[in-house]
């Protein structure tokens, strides 16, 4: 039933993700919906390759909107794949029928971020954990109870009798997360997708739950996909790490290599953002500006370039970056915002991504002068190196940028990086 026998023949891997894309149709305004018009798509996951070997812990790290949770859910078939394949041993999860999908959930299980929401408020612990067995055909009540008790003991909820008849509202956050873990392991899965399992918990409880997950992995031979935004826990927990940004993997490799020699500027930024409690080890940090952009209209070229502290000319500069730069200029103290705003005029039309940008209404010379002033403030701003020409155009100017493609993952040292700073150094494949 596999469409790509060449990938599934690799017996050493538990899961093979090939060119996986998950796109969501965007629900537009009421008018667009009324006429059934397509209002664009969000590429939550966009051409991701990933391999999981049995017994390893792979971290998917990124901010919200990076597609890491969607990728995790796709592994269980909870979100449909738009393109590509997910081979779980020899079955392609992306193409399974609903019935078969339900069956593979004995093999792949999930732990959720918010333990307060992941349990049915009207189900007692025994039923909540036992329902997974019910669903997979364990009819005998005594067998279910034995296995539920065993799972609860494994996750440390003892004395078990104390917890069997509790409702979620009677449990603390850590206890709830233990029940969620018990529900996940009661079916004896091979792969556990853990979506930020500790981020909603108190600092003092996080270590307990992580330790429990490590113990479970050793006792039950589990493989983990650990989804997180926190590189500190990932460093402790993961064997390999994939850094994701706007639906793509931007850096992937062994955990030590990623932490010892971070290559992608985004990886460096994530590392720099972790607050360090030891006052002696604090270093001044150069944080990337802005926030993760709108996934419905990602930046041209490399998606990270608008925030990148190491950007160069070939990163894919475009109209929206020019807008940001002009606004940045007006935020500096002592600039004549009102007069310059008069010359530059409205900036909203720059929001349509393009490699040419026309702006200004106060005469091309005056617009040019404002741009020169902005450039003089920070001559090293990499955007200017990406400009190919600035020409007068009516009462304003037209700025043209160098076109660039989104960089592909390429080998660099022991890892794969998608960044123009790391061009293909060796043509020999791994």
């Amino acid at each position, binding site marked *: 039933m596999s469409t790509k026998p060449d990938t599934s023949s690799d017996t050493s891997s538990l899961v093979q993700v090939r060119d996986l894309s998950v796109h969501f149709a965007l629900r537009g305004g009421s008018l667009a919906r009324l006429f059934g018009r397509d209002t664009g798509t969000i590429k939550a996951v966009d051409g991701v390759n990933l391999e999981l070997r049995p017994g390893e812990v792979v971290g998917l790290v990124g901010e919200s909107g990076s597609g890491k949770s969607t990728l995790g859910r796709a592994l269980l078939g909870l979100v449909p794949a738009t393109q590509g394949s997910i081979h779980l041993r020899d079955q392609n999860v992306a193409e399974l029928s609903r019935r078969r999908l339900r069956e593979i959930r*004995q093999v792949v299980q*999930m732990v959720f971020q918010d333990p307060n929401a992941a349990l049915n*408020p*009207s*189900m007692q612990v025994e039923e909540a954990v036992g*329902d*997974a067995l019910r*669903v*997979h055909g364990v009819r005998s009540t005594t067998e279910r109870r034995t296995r539920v008790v065993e799972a609860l003991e494994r996750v440390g909820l003892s004395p078990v009798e104390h917890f069997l008849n509790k409702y979620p509202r009677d449990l603390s956050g850590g206890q709830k997360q233990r029940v969620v873990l018990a529900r996940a392991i009661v079916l004896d899965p091979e792969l556990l997708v853990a979506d930020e399992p500790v981020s909603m918990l108190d600092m003092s409880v996080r270590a307990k739950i992580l330790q429990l997950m490590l113990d479970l992995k050793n006792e039950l031979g589990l493989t983990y996909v650990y989804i997180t935004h926190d590189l500190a826990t990932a460093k402790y927990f993961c064997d390999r790490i994939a850094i994701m940004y706007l639906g793509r993997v931007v850096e992937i490799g062994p955990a030590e290599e990623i932490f010892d020699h971070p290559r992608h500027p985004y990886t460096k930024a994530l590392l720099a953002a972790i607050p360090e409690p030891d006052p002696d080890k604090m270093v001044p940090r150069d944080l990337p500006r802005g926030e993760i952009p709108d996934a419905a209209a990602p930046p041209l070229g490399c998606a990270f370039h608008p925030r990148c502290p190491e950007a160069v000319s070939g990163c894919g500069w475009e109209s929206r970056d020019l807008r940001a730069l002009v606004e940045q200029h007006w935020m500096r103290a002592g600039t004549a915002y009102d007069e310059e705003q008069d010359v530059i005029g409205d900036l909203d039309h720059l929001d349509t991504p393009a490699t040419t940008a026309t702006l200004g209404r106060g005469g091309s010379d005056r617009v040019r002068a404002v741009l020169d002033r902005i450039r003089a403030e920070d001559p090293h701003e990499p955007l200017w190196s990406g400009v190919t020409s600035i020409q007068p155009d009516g009462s304003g100017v037209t700025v043209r940028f160098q076109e660039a493609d989104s960089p592909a993952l390429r080998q660099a040292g022991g890892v794969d990086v998608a960044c123009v700073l790391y061009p293909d150094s060796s043509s020999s494949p791994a």
Partner: protein
Amino acid sequence: MRRMLSAVAKPFSETTGLARWMLVAGVLITAVFLIAAIFAPWLAPYGFAQSSAHGVEFPKVGHPSSAHPFGTDRLFFDVLSRVIWGARTALEVVILSILFCVVLGVPLGLLSGFYGGPLDRVLVLIMDALYAFPPLLLAIVVSFLLTDVYGGSVIAVSISLTVVYIPQYFRVVRNTTLSAKEATYIEAARAIGARDIRIMRKYLFGNVVHSVPVLGTLNAADAILTLAGLGFLGLGIQSTAAAEWGHDVSRALADAGSGVWWTGLYPGLAIVLLVTGLTLVGEGLNETLNPTLRRRRLLAVVMPPRDRTPVQEVQR
């Protein structure tokens, strides 16, 4: 058993002030009618369609007397007996119609909210159309349609009331389902491999039916009025099939001009009282079960003076 008892006692123990009094008064009034309905054969001096006893015919439109405390009407029936038997009819009809509403409306709302799509659109359209009709008019139309099948029986009236009230159950359940199905625990249920049917039954149902009891009691009050309206128009239950207050009031209309007050007053009073009782219960329940309206009874905080000795709490 203890859990059930405490669940029943919860609305009383958790309410304060007005809400509590509303609930208590409502429950008392409703209980009186409930007892009348259940024990009607023993409580009522005569049958509802009985015009003579021990071979003696009842007087026509007889004044209230020791033999007939509420008097008799122009069909020789004892008014007191008809009021008591009327409680039974009213409760039968209301309970049946609520049962139909719940059995049909709740699953339809669940399906509609859970699956969405064309099924949802069709169901919402039908329910909205029903909801847009004036209740009494709709009930009349349905009673007409059912005349040939069940003609003037309790079942027929119950079905017409069901058609009137089912959209409310459907909408409430559908809307709560829409928000509840986005919860993580529903995704978690999918992740363990549960089928849709099971997700709806075990994970959604228990979390979306909370508002149905309140809706049920509030609708019951409204249904009593609609039932009386149908009876008043002569479209409800026939006098010989069962005692029905609305129909009795309508027959008493002609008496009012000739100074006969007792044939209309007592059935009318029964309608007003039962409607009030049920409304009070409904509103009282609403205030306890609806978390946005609920106000818990808090123990007042008494801080001891500057030291860390144990505290005493005083009930407010």
